[in-house]
């Protein structure tokens, strides 16, 4: 997913990996091992797959960049380090400052609004498009190609296109004035009342194609016979959707919403390009606040504290969300 283009990966995989591992372990229980040993004893070169130290370079890199760096970030969050020289332990000072500062609380609110808003809207539109382009529609592959296109583009480049669309001298206002609604024209990204909503539109535009593709794959797996049987039994379109289609695509819903949520919470590129967090902090998110505090203002301790909060929100929501969709899926 575009922005999607995530460096993180879904919790979905974890569950699946764990399932694969456990099944593999049971496959290779002691019984099968002895059996294999017995049949192979005739062949001298016993098969050994690689060597554990082949994974060592990967282990070293992952430990340094994922574990040590993250742990160090957690430590910095409780200091007043500026990035150079020494630092002092400040306990929870950074966190009480976040709670006190209106700007930081606003960044938390904006982050949550953009993440949830974009997930809900892009998944609803993505699902509608996938349902529309399902089965018999002849041009479905071309439609999929077109709607998915924004997903592969860089969020930064996409943001610059939309900056023009929302510009005071841009297309939105030109259309409004051509239909006599001059009074509505405004600098959409420069107005604190509309800037955040404009950014939400950009996020939804770029992520819809990803949701659509996931749902198209999910829908392709819904057995046509069941739907036909339901239709023959007199189930209407709506009933078929709620009772046949939706339950069978719950795994797709889980994947698409988890990924969308994690990416939505990290939104950075689009904000920096569209508004820079302005006007007056109206579109600041946690990711842009971390950047501003740590890298522009050199307040590494405070930036790390904001990053710690962002990390905890991502982990908590990803796990809860996985649990909810997973649990609902189990019931069916």
């Amino acid at each position, binding site marked *: 997913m575009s922005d999607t283009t995530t460096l993180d990966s879904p919790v979905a995989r974890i569950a699946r990996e764990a399932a694969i591992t456990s099944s593999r372990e049971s496959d290779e229980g002691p019984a099968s091992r002895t059996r294999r040993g017995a049949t192979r004893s005739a062949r001298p070169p016993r098969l050994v797959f690689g060597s554990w130290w082949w994974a060592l370079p990967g282990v070293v890199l992952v430990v340094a960049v994922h574990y040590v760096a*993250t742990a160090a970030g957690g430590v910095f969050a409780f200091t007043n380090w500026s990035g150079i020289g020494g630092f002092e332990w400040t306990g929870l000072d950074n966190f009480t400052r976040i709670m006190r500062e209106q700007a930081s609380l606003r960044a938390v609110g904006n982050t949550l609004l953009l993440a949830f808003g974009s997930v809900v809207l892009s998944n609803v539109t993505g699902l509608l498009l996938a349902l529309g382009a399902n089965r018999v529609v002849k041009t479905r592959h071309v439609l999929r190609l077109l709607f998915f296109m924004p997903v592969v583009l860089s969020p930064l480049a996409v943001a*610059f296109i939309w900056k023009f669309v929302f510009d005071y001298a841009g297309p939105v206002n030109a259309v409004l004035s051509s239909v006599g609604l001059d009074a509505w024209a405004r600098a959409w990204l420069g107005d604190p009342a509309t800037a955040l909503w404009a950014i939400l539109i950009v996020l939804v535009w770029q992520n819809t194609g990803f949701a659509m593709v996931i749902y198209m794959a999910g829908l392709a797996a819904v057995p046509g016979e069941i739907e036909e049987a339901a239709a023959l039994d007199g189930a209407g379109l709506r009933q078929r959707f709620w009772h046949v289609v939706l339950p069978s695509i719950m795994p797709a819903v889980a994947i698409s919403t988890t990924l969308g949520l994690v990416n939505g919470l990290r939104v950075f590129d689009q904000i920096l390009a569209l508004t820079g967090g302005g006007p007056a902090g109206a579109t600041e998110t946690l990711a842009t606040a971390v950047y501003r505090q740590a890298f522009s203002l050199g307040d590494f301790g405070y930036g790390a504290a904001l990053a710690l909060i962002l990390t905890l929100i991502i982990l908590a929501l990803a796990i809860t969300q996985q649990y909810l969709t997973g649990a609902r899926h189990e019931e069916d």
Partner: protein
Amino acid sequence: MFRYTKLTLLREIVLWIVAIAFLLPFYFLLTTAFKTDAEVYGSSPLALPQSPGFEAFLDVLSAGDRAVLRGLASSVLITAGSIGGLVLLGSLAGYVISRRTGRRSRGAYYLFLVAILLPTQLGTVPLYIGARALGLTGTMWGMIVLYTAMLLPLAIFLYAGFFRSLGTEYEEAAAVDGATRAQIFFRIVLPLMSSATGTVAILAGLIIWNDFFTSLIFLGGSESQTLPVAMYYYIGSLVSRWNAIFAIVIISMIPILAFYLFAQKRFITGFAGGLKG
């Protein structure tokens, strides 16, 4: 039962109307980039260019000591280098965790598993300080190492999934013929994994090519800044010369779009299937 009816035709038409509205931003992108400066400021943003020309593109390519072209070159080298690192280290580690059941290999498996869960935000600040201390910020090699490390868990699990679906017959046959472990891996197993390598290359390549945040922090202002960073700084100096801004946006999109149209099926299935594991 599900035949092509008049209703389906109607559905198809509605979908195309939605698609055209959806793609309108690309209309503005293309028409504006080919306008002259006077037209950008003088004509309606909805109008087609009067005398379409490449002036904006030529401007952008030569401006600022060819910053855009150098950004393009950096992006190509950094993306290619990182993909190389990910394919080599990711396939080796993925092979180990999917085939071996020893204690150390199991340990590595759980280590990579947790790394996939950990969000990278919190590590960015210490990573920057560490890289600065080692003199790796602002260098292409530092960036390649960093991207390789950041995306390695993803590459490892993509490979591990593919290795699991491959039976062990080839390895057994090669072992009987006296091939060493390294020969078995590099000459038999890895060549069979070209579709895994393709998925890793597409997914990781796209993420790295489009990444702005990491390269802004680690390469911002340096000689080897990538295209998104060069684009960000250059556009900052353009105020509202939209023809020039869109020229550079188009230049940055061409390589990805060319790849996308060329290998669309691979892209869509690799992207959707790869990310969901």
